[in-house]
């Protein structure tokens, strides 16, 4: 694989952007920070599939495209299916000798939102990973169906106020736990699974490069702070993501071959979960005295998850 150097930011900045401006994502949207970095970390040809969601509707506004690579738009549940199909066709044509340039390096990538990954496209993602296609699936996890106006998904965390789990006089918002998608994908036995975040740009770029150069299906959950649905100022996207990783709400780690877990980032000062929650409008109601128990519950869950990750890292199982 032709890798762009990510030794330091100066070298990385010599990459030639293949994701163009004048897309229609909100100002400060983390989706495009993640997509840009994926496309900048390699020189290889890319075949990218994106299903319906903020990313797709904002980057393929007919007759415009913001993509400088092969790019396929497909229905909501099928990002994995499209990438898998393209990969299978590529392999078959290579075998038959009908490719124009059989030696050109090419990577297959699928982007899906959390709604499409955790819920509606889950079965198709699972199938594509089971079949062992050589592709990388990247979930842009903003914990909500953002494109359709902020409905809850199975990635929405407890206490979040969404349009279908609104906080009010009686409810404190979402009641259920966020689905642990990283563990689920690792349990498929995928060769490379990780959770990454754009504030830690180098860890993220290296993780992307590892996934692209690993043969077989890889899954990466990326933290994608959404200014509109999480309700924070567009200038704070990176600051908010810092709070997410440093409070360990979003720990940064990888799992290799479903077994070997490596923690990729250990915050020097672990921040209280309250600091992360308090910076977002979607959790504002949790700071009322009657919802104190939700804050306590949140911290407990984050602590327990971090403990579990550290034990798994030690045990190598």
């Amino acid at each position, binding site marked *: 694989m032709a890798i762009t150097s990510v030794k330091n930011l*100066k070298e990385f900045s010599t990459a030639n952007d293949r994701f*163009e401006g004048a*897309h229609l994502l909100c100002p400060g949207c983390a989706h495009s920070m993640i997509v840009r970095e994926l496309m900048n970390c390699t020189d290889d040809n890319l075949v990218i599939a994106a299903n319906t969601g903020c990313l797709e509707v904002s980057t393929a506004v007919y007759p415009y495209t913001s993509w400088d690579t092969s790019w396929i738009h497909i229905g909501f549940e099928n990002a994995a299916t499209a990438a898998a199909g393209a990969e299978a066709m590529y392999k078959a044509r290579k075998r038959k000798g009908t490719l124009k340039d059989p030696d050109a390096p090419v990577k297959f990538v699928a982007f899906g939102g959390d709604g499409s990954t955790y819920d509606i496209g889950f079965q198709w993602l699972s199938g594509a990973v089971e079949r062992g296609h050589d592709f990388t699936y990247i979930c842009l996890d903003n914990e909500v169906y953002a494109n359709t106006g902020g409905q809850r998904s199975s990635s929405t965390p407890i206490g979040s106020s969404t349009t279908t789990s609104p906080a009010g006089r009686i409810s404190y918002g979402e009641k259920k736990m966020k689905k642990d998608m990283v563990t689920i994908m690792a349990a498929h036995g995928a060769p490379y699974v990780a959770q990454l975040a754009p504030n830690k740009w180098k860890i993220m770029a290296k993780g992307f490069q590892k996934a692209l150069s690993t043969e077989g299906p890889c899954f990466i959950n990326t933290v994608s702070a959404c200014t509109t649905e999480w309700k924070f100022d567009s200038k704070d996207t990176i600051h908010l993501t810092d709070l997410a990783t440093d409070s360990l709400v979003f720990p940064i780690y990888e799992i290799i071959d479903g077994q070997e877990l490596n923690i990729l980032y250990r915050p020097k000062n672990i921040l209280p979960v309250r600091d992360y929650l308090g910076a977002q409008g979607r959790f504002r109601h949790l700071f009322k005295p009657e919802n104190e128990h939700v804050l306590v519950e949140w911290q407990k869950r984050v602590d327990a998850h971090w403990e579990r990750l550290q034990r798994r890292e030690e045990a190598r199982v």
Partner: protein
Amino acid sequence: MQGVCATDKRGSKELGSEELVGWDEVMQGVVVNSFEGDATDIARQKAEERNYSEFSSYTATVASWRVIKPVYNRDICIDCQNCWVWCPDTSIVSRDKQMLGIDYDHCKGCQVCVEVCPTNPKSLLMFAEHEDLDKALAQWPQKEKKEK
């Protein structure tokens, strides 16, 4: 003048200004080419070397989204490239490890670049959209003393 860089080939079509067709007139399975002619070496070409087609959003503008704009001060910049890596709108123009300026056709004024700029005073600051760039640079603040 300090602080601005525009690549020539970038267009300035207002999004939505093109002639629209109804949803039922759009062909199913449309293929839109981002480039004219051969595009095999795109990853190794800088934007100004590429032959963008009129379908690439590179040839369009979202400048009208902005009410405030970032202004770049070359004198203070250390070329760390923080602004480049985190700009969500591919609007920081960097070439050969140097920050050159802002692409005002694609910048939406989110202010992320200003927040992640580490210099003191910052090398990027937000000003009103109508502010003249030279006037903005003339008002640049002095180094801030760290609070003890």
